[in-house]
């Protein structure tokens, strides 16, 4: 039986419709119309969707393959830096010092020339290429080393954390030539379009939505293919899978690289929309937060990852404004409550609701829950 991605395609539809409507409302309606969507909301939505992509990236490795990565922020940030470097070079001589060759932060710290790794970053295609190549290679090398040596479980998790932590420290160093703690900022335009123009922001949102949808569809294809089932098999009984002749480390490496690339693309889309990339993105706590989004949404389901990322970040936005002094209580409580009462996250809740609505006849037995909370329906989603 093919497991259908039932009840999930609608999510893609809703996303598309909502973002298109928002974009139209922003561009076509006058600012005083009650249906006008402010650029603030557009940008916010763009950011959320980048996070949703990142969440999917984590979910693919964690939810489906049991690789709990506490360092996916690293790939996100590397992608972001790639884009940031491009945007930085686009500033050209419009920086405060008017130096056409060096970014501002290099000028006032007395750099004499552009470090070699900045060369070519003024070409969009090259920057994108590097922004994929670097995190992809890092994921490959790290994954290859780790999976080949059969580093698993918490050991792997903590190593991913060490990885992002080491990168954070490295990028903090001003000698690295990435702007140290301040990172890269003050971008002006992308591909010749003014980054501050509403139309550019809307376009960025639409591009992001496009990538979220593509990621979703591709990932869904993957997890529903036999590959997807091998991956789940690896998660549950890696040794057994190996004895069936599957080179589990290859599966893991490629999945890890795929996931890292998604994270990198998310990072690339994130930077022009929020306007800054700095080493804070490498912080291990950031990566842990991503895992938390996925868990809240329901791991092992792609749409759960999206829903979790959107919900938690929306909650954060609202709470930090509504109760600036106490929002952490609310957010913390949310995490605790979801874990205790919704073992399969929000997706599990949906799943149950949907199940109640139309119990499907003809199935030999009902869904049975494994102790880690996965069931057939969700594994396929």
């Amino acid at each position, binding site marked *: 039986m093919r497991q259908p991605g039932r009840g999930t395609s609608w999510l893609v539809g809703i996303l598309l419709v909502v973002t298109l409507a928002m974009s139209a409302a922003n561009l076509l309606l006058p600012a005083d119309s009650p249906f006008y969507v402010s650029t603030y909301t557009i940008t916010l939505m763009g950011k959320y969707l980048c996070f949703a992509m990142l969440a999917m990236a984590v979910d693919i490795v964690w939810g489906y393959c049991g690789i709990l990565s506490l360092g996916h922020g690293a790939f996100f940030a590397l992608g972001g830096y790639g884009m940031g470097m491009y945007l930085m070079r686009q500033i050209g001589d419009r920086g405060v010092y008017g130096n056409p060759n060096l970014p501002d932060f290099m000028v006032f710290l007395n750099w004499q020339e552009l470090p070699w790794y900045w060369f070519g970053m003024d070409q969009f295609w090259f920057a994108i290429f590097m922004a994929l190549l670097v995190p992809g290679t890092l994921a490959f090398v790290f994954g290859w080393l780790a999976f080949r040596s059969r580093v698993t479980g918490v050991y792997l998790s903590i190593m991913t954390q060490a990885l992002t932590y080491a990168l954070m420290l490295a990028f903090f160093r001003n000698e690295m030539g990435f702007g140290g703690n301040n990172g890269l900022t003050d971008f002006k335009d992308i591909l010749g379009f003014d980054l501050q123009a509403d139309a550019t922001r809307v376009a960025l949102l639409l591009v992001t939505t496009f990538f979220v949808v593509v990621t979703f569809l591709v990932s869904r294809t993957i997890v529903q293919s036999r590959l997807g089932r091998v991956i789940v098999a690896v998660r549950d009984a890696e040794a057994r899978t190996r004895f069936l002749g599957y080179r589990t480390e290859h599966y893991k490496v490629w999945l890890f690289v795929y996931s890292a690339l998604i994270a990198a693309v998310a990072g690339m889309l994130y930077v022009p929309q929020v306007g800054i990339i700095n080493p804070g993105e490498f912080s291990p706590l950031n990566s842990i937060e991503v895992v938390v989004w996925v868990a809240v949404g329901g791991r092992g389901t792609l749409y759960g990852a999206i829903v979790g990322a959107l919900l938690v970040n929306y909650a954060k936005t609202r709470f930090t404004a509504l109760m600036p002094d106490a929002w952490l209580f609310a957010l913390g409580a949310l995490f605790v409550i979801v874990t205790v009462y919704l073992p399969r996250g929000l997706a599990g809740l949906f799943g149950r609701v949907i199940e109640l609505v139309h119990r499907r006849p003809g199935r030999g*037995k*009902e*869904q*049975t*829950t494994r102790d880690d909370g996965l069931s057939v329906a969700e594994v396929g989603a």
Partner: protein
Amino acid sequence: MIRIEKLNQKYGGTQILWDLDLNIEKGSCTCIMGRNGAGKTTLLKCLMGLLPASSGQILFDGKPIQQVAAQQRAKIGIGYVPQGRDIFPLLTVEENLQIGLPARRDGLRKIPERVFELFPVLKEMLQRRGGDLSGGQQQQLAIARALVIDPKVLILDEPNEGIQPNIVRQIGDVVTQLNQEDGLTVILVEQKLGFARRVGREFRLMQKGAVMAADKMSNLNDELIRQYLAV
């Protein structure tokens, strides 16, 4: 000694035990048989308190114990040897045996010698990790471990799975010995007819989560076997 009435059990939405009744006499040695998936293990787990029953009654010495937690059931004298042995893999053999000591009612805090009399191999293996033992050794350890708590009832779930013939015999002897000399009530789930016949004095046949037949072992005839045990 143990009386089960109208026991129902579900995994999620799937019902496994259906209005199951079972009566075990004090001092008896009862063999529960049935096909794969009939619900034998499930029944024993309910009895041990490791699975919640959705309805029904379990009486131990006349007292209802559905609400009693598993650890308390160990203390009132139910010893359990699970299917698959479930040795604590990273504890040494000695530690595996010590775990049950506090549950003894007589306050003894030393592994009783009797255990080593019954299973001399264990004495040699005291300092090895339980998980490293071979299957048969683990099985012996599992029985020994259950005996440490000085139970009144001993529950064994397929104790001979994967055990070498002479030890199967030995286990059979031990069980008989415990039952007859020490007066221990024994509940045994067993698939192998030979062993069941040799050790058990009564039988219960299960099918689809219910007890279909109960009698003295001598009355287990081919007809019953074909009806309830053949595939």
